[in-house]
């Protein structure tokens, strides 16, 4: 409640009563605002759960010997990844279209990944050869478990190089992608 200024008192020399009124108002309402602020901040923090119940993002996908040449789609449904082997080794592509996150499908006859949502097309290396996708497919970090020799995939640790626009599409030089920890020379 801002009391009206007493008549004839210039704003500079604020009276002692006025001063203490302002101070007590400040402390009082300051306390209220601080408390509500604290509860608000707590409530905001409440919205971010500390424990997630999502499927684990680091998982094993069996021995390297279990995967033949070319694209293997057996883990796409359960883990949303493709395991690809070429002459030099193995890499794991993440089955998430870089345009808007749909799951593309592998067409072995055409040797292409095609996204059903907006028609993005990727080659087996993950380069964009058609459609609106802005970047190439992610490759997850993979390593060999020293104990049982299985391939361990870290789904959220991904290789995402900057592609180069070429007539054939958005390309990334393959040699630069086949590097530790996204490629296993097995």
């Amino acid at each position, binding site marked *: 409640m801002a009391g009206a200024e007493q008549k004839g008192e210039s704003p500079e020399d604020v009276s002692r009563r006025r001063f203490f009124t302002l101070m007590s108002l400040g402390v009082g309402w300051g306390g209220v605002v601080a408390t509500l602020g604290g509860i608000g901040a707590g409530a905001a923090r409440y919205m971010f759960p500390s*424990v997630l119940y999502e499927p684990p993002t680091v998982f094993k996908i069996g021995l390297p010997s279990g995967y033949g040449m070319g694209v293997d789609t057996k883990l796409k449904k359960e883990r949303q990844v493709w395991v690809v082997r070429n002459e030099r080794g193995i890499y794991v592509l993440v089955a998430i279209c870089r345009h808007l996150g749909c799951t593309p499908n592998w067409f072995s006859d055409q040797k292409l990944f095609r996204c059903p949502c907006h028609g993005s097309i990727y080659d087996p290396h993950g380069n964009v050869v058609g459609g609106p996708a802005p970047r190439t497919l992610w490759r997850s970090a993979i390593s060999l478990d020293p104990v049982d020799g299985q391939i361990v995939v870290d789904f959220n640790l991904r290789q995402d190089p900057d592609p180069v626009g070429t007539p054939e599409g958005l390309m990334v030089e393959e040699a630069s992608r086949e590097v530790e920890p996204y490629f296993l020379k097995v």
Partner: protein
Amino acid sequence: MWELFQRIRSVVNKTQAFKSIFRHGFPNNDGNRALVMFSNIILHLHPVRVRRGALKIKFTWCLGGLTFFFFILLAITGVFLMFYYVPDTNRAYGNIKDLGTVIFFGDLFRSLHRWSAHSMVLFVWLHMTRVFFTGSYKPPREFNWVVGVILLSTTLVLSWTGYLLPWDQLALWAVTVGSKMAEASPLIGKAGPFGAELGMNANNDITFALLGGTVVGQSALLRFYVLHCLALPLVTALFIAIHFWRIRKDGFSGPL
């Protein structure tokens, strides 16, 4: 500093935006103090003036007001709990355990929800007692008393349905006891007098309708969840509105 603030304030007060939001100046003069009552949706529950006796706590003890405060608190904390609670018999208990352990402020919101629930039930009883002892239910306010009794029963059922949701042993068996009582109701309960005569059995009596089955299980949890989170709060809010409306229209009964 002070004049700067004053200058800003005078500028802001004149902007179209400010004037569209607040249809009255800062209530530091009687004119605005009356206007603030007319133009504010929440404050308009109050009359512009009350008798001096209203300010004394010794009449109403602020019981009705606090009951309404608990109801609002319950609504707010209830919404927060709903962000994490799933009425599924396999997950409900886990959600509540999470709320109590890993979710920041989760235990606070749940305890606050529980304590304001118990307080609301207690204060509804005390409020009813005060209204009886001051004879405030006498004509022309009889029906407002009836609305109060309806509010009392919805509060009890709200609290009872909420009791089941954590799905721990206390919850499950406290509610099973309650539903067994319903089974014994005459005419519509299978175990009640004249129930069997009317062909009531485990699959069509009142308890079956209450639990959505013959045992307190998933469907019972879901029914109680819907009743607790949506149906009953709406009904209670509706009757609270009627209750407040009649208080304003009939005026206070005492020296208020």
